């Protein structure tokens, strides 16, 4: 097939490593597929209402498909329905949407939290205090993860949350919060973070506090620390930003008439721990010091993305 | 008199922290009376007016209106009680047009228009924004707005201070009419000539206390001054010889030489010289181009034609700093234009020292302190409330604007009505100061709205009318009558009488 399609992209968080990787994956995949003539990307910080605006602008621009990372599963339903009505293929990535006509390829956030938390509580020997460092209050990804975390917590009745706090997914906040908490002298046996992880390791080492098991995401910085920091036990749960690339692939498949069996495809997270040999090997191979520490290292998803590392790092779409 | 006072205040006190603005003031006004409220700068006159009209709350005191005790809580409340003030500062809302300003205060438009015409402003556009109206006209509008609601008592705080003679005269006429029609007026002014022209009685304040109530009769001025100042102050012609004495050694070039100066449509064609060691007076009715003249000479506005030479060299000012670099300083009439209200007296006076880029570095605090102290001393500034200039009384604020340039040792000072709102003693001091400056070889261009000042301080008077110099009068013939005639553009020998102020100089009741 020649380069024929125009794909619209809508994303509502800017300046965050994960989202930037997602955008680059979309561009790289569009380029690698050879089927996309033009990308039309709306990428800025806004809310669901702002995303409605962006989506409608994309509809006005008459794109063939829209890949959207929804600000909220329900909040953009109206515009997605309008898009479908206009004959546009809609693929939601990262989070689900409630609009039934849209396709979804998503990371399983509930599972993400459950997997990490369960591992952590096992490492703690099924008892003790855990520090629970959440994301941004009021964000839907945060409340999904909270469900997973709580589910794991139920399985370990002797694990207590000694400190629960919202980092707002901000490095500086998280660091000050953990340092403040350390200063209180309250004992704790493990830390679960919602992906703001490397500053927590830094804080522990800088304040010469005994290292406890830490769960984070597969961000380049944290993966590096898992490999290098002496005495650090921890696990990275994958939450690939490259899901964006997968979204493009799905959209192109549908445009080419190859509809998937289900509307929803979930990408299951996996957990890389540095306490087993297998896990260590995974971490070693995944580590990539050349990436920005905020970027997830899982820069590709087998079967879904076809670009090379150079392509995603170059972050260039068709026509650039 | 057996009538009961319409307004009777006793034992009024008000303190701002350590500063007692009023200690024990009283004031009793009869119906139909024009009552002068007098006192030196900072005596507490404005404070009393503000208390009577609810703009501020007194700490103590008893206020009776028509015999009934009344707690006036706000200006709106005072208005309902029949007390309408015109404060020392304009009270129109700058961003509203005049009609809206009237609506805001519930003032009927037609009577207002009539009063404005009566007060000598025939061509007012009521759709103008208040901020575009010149200060003197604003004062008139403030007064017309007060008159239009027909109050029982009208309080005028230095109403005439910013007015040129022609407008001041109309105000006095109007005030007289008011008292004839049975209304009372409380009138604050530092000009004895106005007081004697129309007031019935005067209450004198000193340091926040009422020190006397006198009937205005010919010759009472000395007594009032004595009450005000607590001691006798002799009033003499300060002028001594002037340029004719000092100017015998003519410099090769005049200090400032203006030729065919034009600014927009207001200033048409003005030429004159200002020499070292002289005080040249400028006399003009309101709006004859004097603001533009001073603005152009100080670099604040750009002339549209003509030349300015300083010490024989042609100059073009694009910013006041250019003029200041050549030693030319400007003291505008409206002190709010030049004061840093939230800063201390010291910082206000020292401001020009830091102005230029090369003086942005560390300040020599010791030197500054002595320089500033000397300037304060020289102008006798009452610095009890010196931490913020906004807390000084109006007159003392006025002095700070001059002190700044005395401290900076400017060679030429352009003074625009500097004695506006200044008490008699300070006026004398300022006259003396200006003469001293001249004696030291400095030069002063002096615009005044009080014509009698010309003979006190100036070496000659440049009269401007319609944007042109119409006459230059030597001091000996520049009496008020001659100046008034000239400022209406009448030739020097015409003999019509122009209004009461011109006539007043012939009456023995004059303040000399």
């Amino acid at each position, binding site marked *: 097939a020649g380069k024929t399609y125009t794909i619209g992209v809508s994303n509502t968080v800017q300046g965050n490593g994960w989202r930037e990787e997602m*955008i680059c994956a979309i561009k790289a995949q569009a380029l690698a597929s050879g089927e996309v003539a*033009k*990308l*039309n*990307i*709306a*990428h*800025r*910080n*806004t*809310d*669901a*209402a*702002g995303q*409605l*605006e*962006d989506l*409608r*602008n*994309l*509809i*006005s*621009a*008459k794109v063939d498909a829209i890949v959207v990372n929804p*600000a*909220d*599963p*329900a*909040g*953009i339903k*109206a515009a997605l329905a309008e898009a479908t009505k206009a004959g546009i293929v809609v693929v939601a990535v990262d989070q689900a949407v409630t609009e039934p006509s849209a396709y979804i390829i998503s990371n399983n956030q509930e599972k993400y939290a459950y997997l990490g938390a369960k591992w952590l509580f096992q490492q703690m020997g099924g008892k003790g205090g855990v520090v629970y460092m959440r994301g*941004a*209050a*009021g*964000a*839907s990804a*945060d*409340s999904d993860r909270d469900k997973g975390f709580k589910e794991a917590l139920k399985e370990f009745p002797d694990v207590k949350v000694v400190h629960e706090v919202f980092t707002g997914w901000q490095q500086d906040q998280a660091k000050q919060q953990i340092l403040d908490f350390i200063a209180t002298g309250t004992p704790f046996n493990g830390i679960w973070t919602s992906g703001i992880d490397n500053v927590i390791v830094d804080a522990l080492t800088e304040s010469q506090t005994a290292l406890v098991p830490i769960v984070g995401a597969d961000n380049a910085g944290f993966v590096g620390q898992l490999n290098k920091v002496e005495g650090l036990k921890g696990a990275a749960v994958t939450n690939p930003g490259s899901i964006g690339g997968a979204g493009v692939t799905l959209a192109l498949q549908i445009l080419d008439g190859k509809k998937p069996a289900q509307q929803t495809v979930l990408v299951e997270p996996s957990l890389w721990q540095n306490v087993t040999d297998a896990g260590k090997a995974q971490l070693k191979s995944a580590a990539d010091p050349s990436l920005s520490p905020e970027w997830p290292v899982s820069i590709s998803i087998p079967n879904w993305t076809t670009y090379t590392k150079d392509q995603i790092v170059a972050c260039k779409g068709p026509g*650039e | 008199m057996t009538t009961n006072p319409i307004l009777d205040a006793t034992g009024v006190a008000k303190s701002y922290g350590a500063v007692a603005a009023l200690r024990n003031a009283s004031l009793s006004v009869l119906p139909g009376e024009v009552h002068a409220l007098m006192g030196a700068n900072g005596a507490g006159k404005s404070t009393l007016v503000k208390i009577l009209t609810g*703009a501020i709350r007194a700490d103590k005191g008893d206020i009776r209106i028509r015999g009934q005790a009344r707690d006036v809580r*706000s*200006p*709106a409340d005072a*208005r309902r009680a029949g007390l309408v*003030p015109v*404060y020392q500062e*304009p*009270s*129109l*809302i*700058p*961003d*509203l047009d005049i009609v*809206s*300003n009237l*609506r*805001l*205060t*519930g003032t009927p438009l037609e009577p207002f228009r009539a009063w404005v015409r009566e007060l000598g402003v025939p061509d007012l556009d009521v759709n103008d924004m208040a901020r575009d109206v010149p200060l003197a006209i604003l004062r008139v509008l403030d007064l017309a707005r007060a008159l239009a609601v027909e109050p029982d008592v009208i309080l005028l705080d230095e109403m005439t201070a910013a007015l040129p003679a022609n407008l001041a005269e109309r105000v006095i006429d109007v005030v007289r009419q008011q008292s004839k029609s049975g209304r009372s007026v409380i009138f604050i002014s530092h000009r004895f000539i106005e007081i004697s022209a129309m007031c019935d009685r005067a209450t004198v304040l000193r340091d926040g206390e009422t020190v006397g109530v006198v009937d205005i009769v010919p010759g009472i001025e000395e007594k009032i001054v004595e009450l005000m100042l607590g001691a006798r102050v002799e009033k003499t012609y300060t002028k001594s010889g002037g340029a004719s004495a000092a100017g015998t050694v003519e410099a090769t070039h005049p200090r400032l030489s203006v030729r065919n100066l034009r600014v927009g449509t207001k200033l048409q064609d003005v030429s004159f010289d200002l020499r070292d060691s002289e005080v040249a007076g400028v006399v003009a009715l309101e709006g004859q181009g004097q603001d533009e003249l001073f603005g152009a000479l100080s670099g604040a506005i*750009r002339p549209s034609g003509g030349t300015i030479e300083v010490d024989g060299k042609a100059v073009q000012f694009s910013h006041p700093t250019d003029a200041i670099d050549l030693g030319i300083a400007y003291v505008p009439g409206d002190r709010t234009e030049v004061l840093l209200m939230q800063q201390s007296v010291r910082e206000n006076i020292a401001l020009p020292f830091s102005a230029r880029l090369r003086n942005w570095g560390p300040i020599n605090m010791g030197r500054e302190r002595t320089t500033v102290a000397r300037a304060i001393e020289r102008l006798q500034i009452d610095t009890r409330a010196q931490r913020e200039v906004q807390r000084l009384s109006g007159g003392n604020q006025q002095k700070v604007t001059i002190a700044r340039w005395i401290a900076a040792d400017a060679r030429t000072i352009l003074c625009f009505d500097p004695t506006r709102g200044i008490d008699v003693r300070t006026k004398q001091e300022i006259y003396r100061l200006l003469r001293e400056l001249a004696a030291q070889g400095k030069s002063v261009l002096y615009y005044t709205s009080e014509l009698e000042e010309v003979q006190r301080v100036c070496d000659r008077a440049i009269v401007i009318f319609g944007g042109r110099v119409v006459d230059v009068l030597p001091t000996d013939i520049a009496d008020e009558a001659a100046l008034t005639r000239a400022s209406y553009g009448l030739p020097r020998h015409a003999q019509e009488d122009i209004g009461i102020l011109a006539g007043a100089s012939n009456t023995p009741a004059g303040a000399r």
Partner: protein
Amino acid sequence: MIRFVRKNGWVTGLFVLLALLFVITKIIQPGYGAGDFGSLVRAVLPFAFAVAAQTIVVIAGGIDLSVASMMALTSVTAAYMMNGASEEFALLVVPMVLLMGAGLGALNGILIVVTRVPDIVVTLSMLFVLQGAALLVLDSPGGAAAEWLKELIVGTIQIPGIPDAINAWLPKGLLLLLVCLGIVWIPLRRSWLGLSIYAIGSSPLAAFRSGVPVARTKTIAYAFSGLFGAMGGLTLTMSTGIGAPIPGPYLLASVAAVVLGGVVLGGGRGGLVGPIVAVFVLRLVRTDLTLLAIDPNVTAIVEGTIMVVVVMLGAYLAMRGRTS
């Protein structure tokens, strides 16, 4: 007429700019039509109300940093109350939420007047308080909106007797916007209260001396701001069908549009039409950037530049006007 144009020069200029942008849009996307205009209007709605809320307090000499939080709180409250409730119940919810907005706005004003803390600090504090309250109502996006409420901004007004071609260009959202703003603003602007709001913004001292009850007027201005904020919050719920406790980007956008609209920060000058037109301009620029498929990172640069250049141009023209 000339006087009108001169007096309203800035707003006239904005209208011209807007018309120009429509032409450009039509050139970029020849298919740009009535439906797309409807989308524009819906995008404008929350911004327009945020800007209206900001405008009124700025005219009164204040600034309201809590607009976006106010919108978030009223939006979640509405969505929370309508969740699972009947369609008729929403008839009750709407006035309640509007009242709540006005009340919280008045609280802003009262705090400013009573504590004498500057507006910017009080409303900054309220930004946190309202945000916190929104999180207490709903800790993540959720809730629902009544169908009739959502329908209010969908589709066009059918005025009988007017050809469909014109009707198509009259989206319901526009009517809603004009009615909601007009109902409040027009009578206000003509009333003594409206004058007082301008007066306290221009010079609180002179206003007080002119007999304006400054404290009360300020409180009322903030109450109106809260009311507009609540309308904005409701439009958020209407368009998304949910409530989100995290405030959207309405604070800075509202301040920017207020200034672009010719309202002077500091108070006393300006009107509501300018800021609303400015909102349309800003939204249309965003549309054009999307239509042009400009690199998303460059769009921030473009938006920033437009803001600075337009205001600089205005300032430059004003300077020229003053000297000539």
